[in-house]
């Protein structure tokens, strides 16, 4: 019985901590969103409070502008071609700036990419070989 109570107390505690943590995360999410990508592509969705800004910037780790796009009401942004690294997503207008997100880009390893490429190349060569071999034998048979 005691162990049941202990178990219940522990579960309630975990639940409360969970709720507390998730509300903290939700608060953080309102301030700035964390994005991560393995292919250098990031989608930043539109939010109504972005309408007061004019420009959307991606800043690299040194703070210099990687790219800049206009803010168009109702439209989010898809940014592509980013190399490995950490970036800030910033909105700006004539007299204010707002950090809306942080991006971490870590591309897949070249080793795994080339392994898959080699499997594809071998399988493709084998497919061509199979088709040619049977095509020749069919032609000679005909």
């Amino acid at each position, binding site marked *: 019985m005691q162990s049941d109570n202990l178990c219940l107390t522990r579960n309630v505690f975990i639940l409360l901590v969970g709720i507390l943590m998730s509300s903290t995360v939700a608060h953080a999410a309102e301030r700035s969103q964390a994005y991560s990508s393995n292919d250098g592509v990031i989608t930043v969705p539109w939010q109504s409070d972005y309408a007061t800004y004019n420009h959307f910037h991606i800043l690299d780790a040194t703070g210099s502008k990687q790219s800049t796009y206009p803010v168009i009401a109702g439209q989010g942004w898809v940014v592509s071609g980013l190399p490995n690294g950490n970036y800030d997503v910033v909105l700006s207008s004539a007299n204010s700036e707002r950090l809306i997100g942080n991006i971490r880009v870590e591309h897949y390893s070249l080793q795994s990419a080339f392994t898959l490429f080699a499997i*594809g190349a071998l399988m493709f060569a084998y*497919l061509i070989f199979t088709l040619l071999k049977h095509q020749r034998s*069919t032609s000679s048979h005909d």
Partner: protein
Amino acid sequence: MTDFTLASSNALAILIVFGIAWILWGWYLGRNNRTIDDYALAGRNVGFAMATATAMATWITSNTTLVAPQLTYQFGVWGMLGYSMAALGLILFAPLAAKIKQLLPNGFTSGDFIYQRYGKAAWMAFMVISLCYALGWLVSLGMAGGLLLSSLSDLDYYTGMTAILVICVVYTLLGGLKAVIATDFVQSIVIIGGVVFIAWVCIDEVGFSTIHTNLTTSQPELLNLLFPAAIMFFFNNVFFGIGEIFHSNVWWSRAFAFAPSVGKKSYLTAGLLWLPIPIVTGFIALAAGSLNLSPPSADMVGPMVAAVLLGKIGAVFIFIVVFSALASSMDSLLAATSDLLTQDIAKRVFMPKASSDKLLRVNRLIIIGLGIATWCVAALKLATLGALLNFTGAFVAATIWPIVYGIYQPKLSGGYAAIAMVTGTVAGLIGYFMIGFYVAAIISCAVSLVVCRIGIVRSQSYFTWHSLKE
């Protein structure tokens, strides 16, 4: 709202004119259809020019006009080149088309072949894969119509999606494969002329050096030949394209419909003509950054760049080109999938003794049903076009080896063919969700190959080809 956005009244006017023109033409071409052979296979006597045009136009689709720019925007140079490798599907299908016509002179569908070659278990696996793919492609085409309209005009996604579906369902319903092939012929001319013109304007207005400079500073990975995700994507797209063509009844029904000795030449020519088109359509996406453009969804980048380059008139132009591309694929897919369902499900399972008239009526009802089902799924807008299409890659790539071995290797049994298709699909889907959409097809194809090879090594049976001739 951007300065190239068409007013909703103009966009609606184009839709109505376009729709009425295609529907009237479909009715005119289909007025002499008397039998299911006339309706579903255009009398089995399509000549070289029409055959080549329909093969090429069907393969120029939302994939080519919307997804090729999307994948170039995401994967850069590799994306563009990888996408053009989908032409290999058409080129490699050329010898198969000749063999198919020889093996099944009275065949109707790809399902016919699988049923007779491998039996019921493999046929069931194949039908599930084929229908999942057909619905995925249809949904992507419906979505593309909606995206196109919402990116170029004030009209919303649902209006565009509904319009393309209604137009294509009605003219396919009225004209059958004959209307599909004839409209494809005109649509292919519009599409090729259009994309070449847009690429020329892009080079003229923006220029190679500006594009290169901008990419180097803002999106350097797009020029990187050692871009890992793009390297993964390259052969994935090759096998996705091959899987799409090798298994789909869109291409098999054409192989049956083309006149004897036309299939091989037509597919080969269509593949070679199609090869540079994704490079042209994809290239314009590289100019997005130079034009200060970041699309709200990656699959909208092509029309948006073209509309910025050409202004309001350009938006109308793009609208017509992409709508032609969508229509040329959607009509083919509606016709081929309804044939597959009519012949392989309705006739084989429920009404083996049905007359030609009855099958014709069932075929038409199925076209309407497919249109409604596509609308319902496309309305949910579950993923981007590229992600949705590559999801179906996990299904179709699993059929490549069972089909190749089905035609050329008499030792593969139906049991192993079924296992190859099922395990390949499951492995591809795991890859899709665990790694990304750019590995689904290659994993699926590799697993299917391994199972087929095991089946051939362990085989005790030997299939005789003459039993396929009905």
